[in-house]
């Protein structure tokens, strides 16, 4: 329990220096990664990342600093640096206090010792099974890339209000991108699975599916652009929701009027077919945990209920600013795994789109002229302030007379996501996929502009 000790020492030292409040967050990750390239294993590595981040408050002035070692000398320096940063700032009139202890929910399937103790030999075997599966399905496989990753994490938070918590978690994932060739024609397909426990994880099925998609993606044809119904695969839905919708439901952005949903609580902002929930307590969820990034219990927060905007998400700071309770949505956002190096901000936990009762076949059978989009390119370039996006449907199939007809050579789709969610939702599907922290079925939209 080195991370918890490190946090206690940091808070104690900060208190000795005379700060008003202090919070220490320490994390340690161990990740084993097997990379697949072409038809073999490219590399195998383990990576340990860990460190401690310290937030201090003095006269309502906040400072933050971190170190990636847990040696006392470095922890002391981080506390001192955080305090000296605090001293350079003006008092934050909105500052109230760090969060206080509360009871944590019981969240199941977050840790599996089977994942933690997985040997790299077994992961290599899995990777080889993935390669073989993809090759067996489809004789036109020309190359692939992918990985199998097993991770173990432990996080601890201590603050001067009395929070003292520690939790551990595991995650195992495997994904494959398959390239098929037929003469000069190239088809690609991608699929993956990610779970918190070994028993639920399946590396075979996605390898099969990626290979099948890449084969079906051969023989692309040019199509005519225009307005049509598009069916988005859970990958595409998750891509748009996490890049555009997720920032738009942040309470801090709503307060700063940086989202089209600002000042619209209680209003109908989406189709009555849509219910969207943020749930940090979802059993086995990719982003599930007992507590958020500042030690506040995770919660289930209804964002959109049958089209009506119900809540924004908050961490403790922004909840205090608007006089609400934290929704347990403090996150330490970083692309690099070193979450100890960033201050808590607001972000989604697991975003869940409630499924309806229609299978993919039923969704497609009603469409005369449409596009089935599996993966998109460029969702990260969308503009969350306005919700506008203009992306490539790059693994996409033409739908004609209720059937998937052929793969499409080139197609872009564009629109404003908030408007699409309000006016264009056709059908919400029944089968959900956990696409990292977005759990969603297929969704189809009417009357979307497709450019070719």
């Amino acid at each position, binding site marked *: 329990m080195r991370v918890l000790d490190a946090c206690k020492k940091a808070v104690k030292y900060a208190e000795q220096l005379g700060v008003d409040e202090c919070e220490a967050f320490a994390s340690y990750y161990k990740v084993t990664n097997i990379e697949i390239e072409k038809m073999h294993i490219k590399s195998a590595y383990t990576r340990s990342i860990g460190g401690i981040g310290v937030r201090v408050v003095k006269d309502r002035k906040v400072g933050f600093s971190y170190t990636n070692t847990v040696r006392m000398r470095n922890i002391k320096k981080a506390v001192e640096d955080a305090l000296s940063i605090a001293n*350079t700032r003006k008092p934050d009139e909105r500052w109230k206090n760090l969060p206080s202890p509360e009871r944590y929910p019981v969240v199941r399937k977050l840790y599996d010792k089977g994942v933690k103790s997985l040997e790299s030999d077994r992961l290599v075997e899995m990777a080889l099974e993935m390669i073989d599966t993809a090759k067996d399905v489809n004789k036109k496989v020309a190359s692939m890339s992918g990985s199998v990753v097993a991770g173990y994490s432990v996080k601890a938070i201590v603050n001067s209000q009395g929070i003292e918590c520690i939790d551990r978690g595991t995650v195992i994932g495997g994904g494959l991108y398959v390239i098929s060739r037929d003469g000069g024609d190239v088809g690609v397909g991608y699929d993956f699975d990610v779970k918190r426990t070994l028993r639920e994880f399946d590396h075979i099925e996605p390898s099969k599916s990626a290979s099948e998609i890449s084969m079906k993606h051969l023989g692309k044809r040019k199509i005519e652009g225009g307005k049509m119904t598009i069916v988005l695969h859970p990958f595409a839905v998750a891509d748009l929701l996490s890049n555009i919708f997720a920032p738009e439901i942040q309470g801090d952005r709503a307060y*700063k009027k940086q989202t089209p949903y600002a000042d619209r609580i209680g209003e109908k902002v989406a189709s009555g077919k849509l219910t969207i929930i943020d749930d940090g307590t979802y059993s086995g969820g990719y982003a599930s945990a007992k507590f958020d990034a500042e030690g506040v219990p995770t919660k289930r927060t209804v964002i959109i209920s049958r089209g009506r905007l119900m809540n924004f998400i908050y961490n403790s700071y922004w909840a205090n600013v608007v006089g609400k309770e934290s929704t347990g949505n403090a996150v330490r956002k970083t692309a690099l795994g070193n979450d100890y190096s960033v201050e808590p901000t607001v972000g989604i936990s697991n975003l869940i789109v409630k499924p309806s009762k229609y299978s993919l076949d039923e969704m497609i059978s009603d469409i005369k002229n449409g596009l089935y989009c599996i993966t998109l390119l460029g969702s990260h370039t*969308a503009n969350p302030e306005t919700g*506008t996006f203009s992306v490539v449907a790059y693994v996409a199939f033409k739908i004609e007379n209720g059937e998937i007809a052929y793969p499409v050579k080139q197609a*872009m789709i564009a*629109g404003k996501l908030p408007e699409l969610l309000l006016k264009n939702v056709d059908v919400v599907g029944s089968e959900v996929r956990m696409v990292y922290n977005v759990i969603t079925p297929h969704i189809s939209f009417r009357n979307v502009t497709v450019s070719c």
Partner: protein
Amino acid sequence: MKEMLEKTVEYALKLGADYADIRVEKVATREITACKGIIEKAVSGVDSGAAMRVLVNGAWGYASTSSITLESLKESFERAVKMARVNSEKLPEHERIKLADVKNVEDTVRIKVRKSLNAMDISEKISFILEVDKVIRDHSPKIVSTDIRYGDMVGKKILLTSEGTFIVMDVSRAYISMTAIAKEGARIQSYRTRIGGKGGFEKIERGDPVSEAKRAASKAVEMLKAKPAPSGRFTVIADPLHIGVFAHEALGHACEADLVTSGQSIVAGKLGEQIGSEVVTIYDDSTVDFWGSEKYDDEGVPTRKRVLIENGILKEYITNRESAAKLGVEPNGGGRAMNYNYAPIVRMSNTYVAPGDYSFEELIEDIKYGIYVKDSRGGQVDPAMGTFQFNAQEAYLIEKGEITTPLLDVSLSGLTLETLKNIDAVGKDLKLSIGFCGKGGQYVPVGTGGPHVRIKEVVVGGMR
């Protein structure tokens, strides 16, 4: 330090490694963000650690640690060798990795710094950030919000290889991005500019942050009048920042030799072929005094200017030692790693289209109906198919040779090999911009740019 590192590398060879290297880094970073006159975040911190890499029977093994003691480094090498052995057992004979030969280097690389980022007090940086924030807000009552992000990193990187290379390199970079958010009625628009460089704080000052802040504000307000873009195929004029994203995303990635040798690139097997129109020349140059440059890559190979395309002919790929050996060429210094937690992979440096001889007026005068796209929030590409998407931060309609209506957020798409042939005129200006490129979970600083360029038949993903 050198002696200790030599001991650990010798230890790795004793454990059975055929090749071993170790990279040790210590980097201090600062990050400050502001919104509407309030500092929202001020962070400083230090990351230090070491990365170990070994080849055993032609298979890689890696390990990293944040504890730089002889004992911990040796233990990490043990892990790396174990991983390599596991990997090596299943590797087919023809896939065993060889490294291209390089001359050993002993060098210390300093960065010229006029205004040290470490010596400068954080309060001075904070007041600078609040100043540009105020410049944006003072520009117009329509500016409702701002998002200012400042970051810098200062430190040292050391590389030691079992072959005898030993390089000590300074790290010193600073950047600032300034976003203005304007609102009128229900319409919101944002505009971002960024400046930065390799060196000290002077790199930010030389980018004229105050006038860049004003520009961000006035563009955000101007784009409030933007109309939905048309959809379909058009002749497009791309500005230097937008064509830079094209050079990087569409061609640059396809020229990364790891993608070429693993059958994931559309330009594999096309060296010496005419893949673009004769007016197209594209470089990836790590020797210019710019954001994305390094004197040596993270494998200790001296970098140089790589000619990717010259007058439309594909000339060379960007290589690290592994891919260079596969291709039978000399490595050109393309092996870069984000930090000690990652192994070097093939990366770009500063990628740009070489200027031609058209003036802006000449480029635009014959276009009856087209689109002028400027700058970009980024893009994405599938190098195996050559399908690309990139966003334009700012766009206008071109009608009868004149720039007319501003257009709402729009992106372009195309197929790299078709688009390279559809470039029919290249401007004589040249501008580079800073950015970060993500690949394999690693983000490294890269530069992109070029002149104004005219492209035919580009798919524009509009809303009408």
